[in-house]
């Protein structure tokens, strides 16, 4: 068996050798990071967004690049998933978007701070992450019913905000019900009232009162009412 001297040698040589390899790989990795596309898009906004991210310990609930706590959603691809408009509306009043659900602290960010955070999230979403986060494998897709024959095209607001929770023609979120045939159940007047204040019509619903202008409400309602 080994003598104590040999054991000591094993420890010292092993540690020294693998530390040296680690430093070498670190040098190479940094070279890779600083010459990749992401380092060119690292703007002032992204950096100040990162500072806000750290100053408020967002990692204490969320994960980004899969790192952080597991109490709130993974945000690496949130820009792709929700889009900037949705994130903006959400950050202004997080609890209004998910009434009665798991709470996020309301931070009272200014408009420019929100823009910085969005820039930071966008930058992270564009990193080459070697396939993380994985795309769901068995996600079911509902076939679209009538959305394509609809006369009124999908309003921009719908794509920015509503699709985060609802789907039309199989595209969109699965938090709220699919809206493929919502026009069969409700007319324009009902939908307008609903969008103005969902809580008033159905107290306790998960649907938040969204910051929509009267025009946007009209556009959305006329679009939705023809989905039959």
């Amino acid at each position, binding site marked *: 068996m*080994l003598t*104590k001297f040999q*054991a*000591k040698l*094993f*420890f010292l040589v*092993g*540690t020294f050798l*693998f*530390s040296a*390899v*680690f430093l070498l*790989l670190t040098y*190479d*990795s*940094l070279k*890779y*990071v600083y010459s*990749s596309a*992401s380092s060119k898009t*690292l703007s002032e906004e*992204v950096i100040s967004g*990162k500072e806000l*991210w*750290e*100053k*408020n*310990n*967002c*990692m*204490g*609930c969320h*994960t980004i*690049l*899969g*790192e952080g*706590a*597991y*109490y*709130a*959603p*993974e945000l690496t691809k949130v820009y792709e998933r929700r889009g900037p408009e949705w994130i903006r509306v959400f950050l202004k009043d997080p609890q209004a978007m998910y009434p009665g659900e*798991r*709470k996020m602290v309301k931070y009272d960010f200014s408009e420019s701070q929100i823009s910085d955070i969005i820039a930071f999230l966008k*930058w*992270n979403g564009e*990193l080459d*992450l*070697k*396939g*993380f*986060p*994985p*795309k*769901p*494998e*068995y*996600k079911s897709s509902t076939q679209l019913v009538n959305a394509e024959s609809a006369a009124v095209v999908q309003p921009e607001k719908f794509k920015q905000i509503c699709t985060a929770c609802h789907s039309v023609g199989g595209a969109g979120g*699965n*938090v709220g019900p699919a809206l493929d045939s919502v026009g069969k159940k409700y007319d324009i007047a009902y939908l307008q009232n609903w969008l103005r204040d969902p809580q008033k019509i159905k107290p306790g619903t998960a649907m938040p009162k969204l910051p929509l202008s009267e025009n946007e409400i009209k556009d959305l309602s006329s679009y939705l009412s023809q989905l039959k």
Partner: protein
Amino acid sequence: MKYKSQKIAYWFFATCMLLLSLQIVYGFVMGFARMGFDGLHDWIPFNAARATHTNLLVVWLLTGFMGAAHYIIPDESDREIYSEKLAYIQLISLILVGVVSIIGFHLNFWEGRKFLEIPRPLDYLVVVNVLLFLFNIGMTVWKGKRYTTTALVLYFGLFSAALLYLPGMIQFNSQTVDSYFRWWVVHLWVEGVWELIMGGILSFLLIKLTGVDREVIEKWLYVIVGLTFLSGILGTGHHYYYIGVPEYWKWVGGFFSMLEPLAFLAMAMFAISMYRKSGRNHPNTIALFWTIGSAIMSFVGAGFLGFAHTLPQVNLYTHGTLITAMHGHLAFWGAYAMIVFAILTYAMPLLTGRKLWNNPTGLFAFWASNIGMLGMTGAFAVAGIAQVYLERKLGLDFLTVQKEIQVHFLGLVLAALVFTSGIIAFIINFIRFGTPTDEALGAEQASGDISLARRS
């Protein structure tokens, strides 16, 4: 104890128990929040509870390690601590930094990087504090009558832990680089230098408790810490799969992660075989329980459960889910919490002169806390596996999945109650020992320390 100044260890241990109690309180706050009872949201939002919970863990373990050093180093070096006054100043300043940080967390004042949440200005105080500690312990080793491998490994571990705190203090603009160097602290601590500290304490305890020859134990200590660094340094790569660095980290990280359990397996086999070699039994069997238990549980929690999700193919799905919390809980408990409990259980009778070993409370503390922690790990595992399938495979929305797995957190809280009852029993025993006295000087003979008894 052999030296008066070893009494300092007691005050570190007492601080340890206090911080651990607080950590458990914050654990419950989070457990209830996950069950949907987030009543403290306005005062203790989840991120504050989480930062407090993990930082208290780090601080109480470090306090425990420092306490262990204050007990072990004088014993190993055959002299009093270099400066008792410095030791007390250091302990008090450590507590102050801790308290200020924790209050800061509740006022949205932090650095916001997981495990390194302590605000930057306080980081400098931490550095000064640890330098004080290292100076004091280092001078004790330096001026000591003998240099033992156990003492050197322990000191080298503590020294490297301080050194590796520094990369975490540099600021980077890119999240990728930030993450890269954050793991230099976090991974190289828990899967590198902390294992040296653990190995040092383990070997000290085995020398004392089993009476096996020092030469034999220290030889294996070298092999084990050698294995730790051989696998652990490049094993850092398992944190680098998906942060935007080159593809080769998947191979490097994956391969060396597969070797990481070896160090823990060696540690467990080493502890058990040394125990079997011991001719006579030490009367403080509970200290032996904690010592052997730590070696075994660290293999299960850190080695096996760590391996269970570090392969890149698996990690792609489990990365950033509750699976990490499952592994983290048993790993920290087995490797570091239990070794602190072991040195505490061993040292308390010697510090106070009270032979409170092998009583029912102490035995209950061991079994309840271990069974409770295994239950908690199980609850996290079931919740984590369900989360991975529903969220990552089926593509359900995050919050929908969280509602589905809420029930497992009821299981978690129930197991945590069993765990807490064990910790309460341990603390009751700790209090019953009372404070250390000089009358306990030279009580080794009576304590049944086989090796010491044989030598003197």
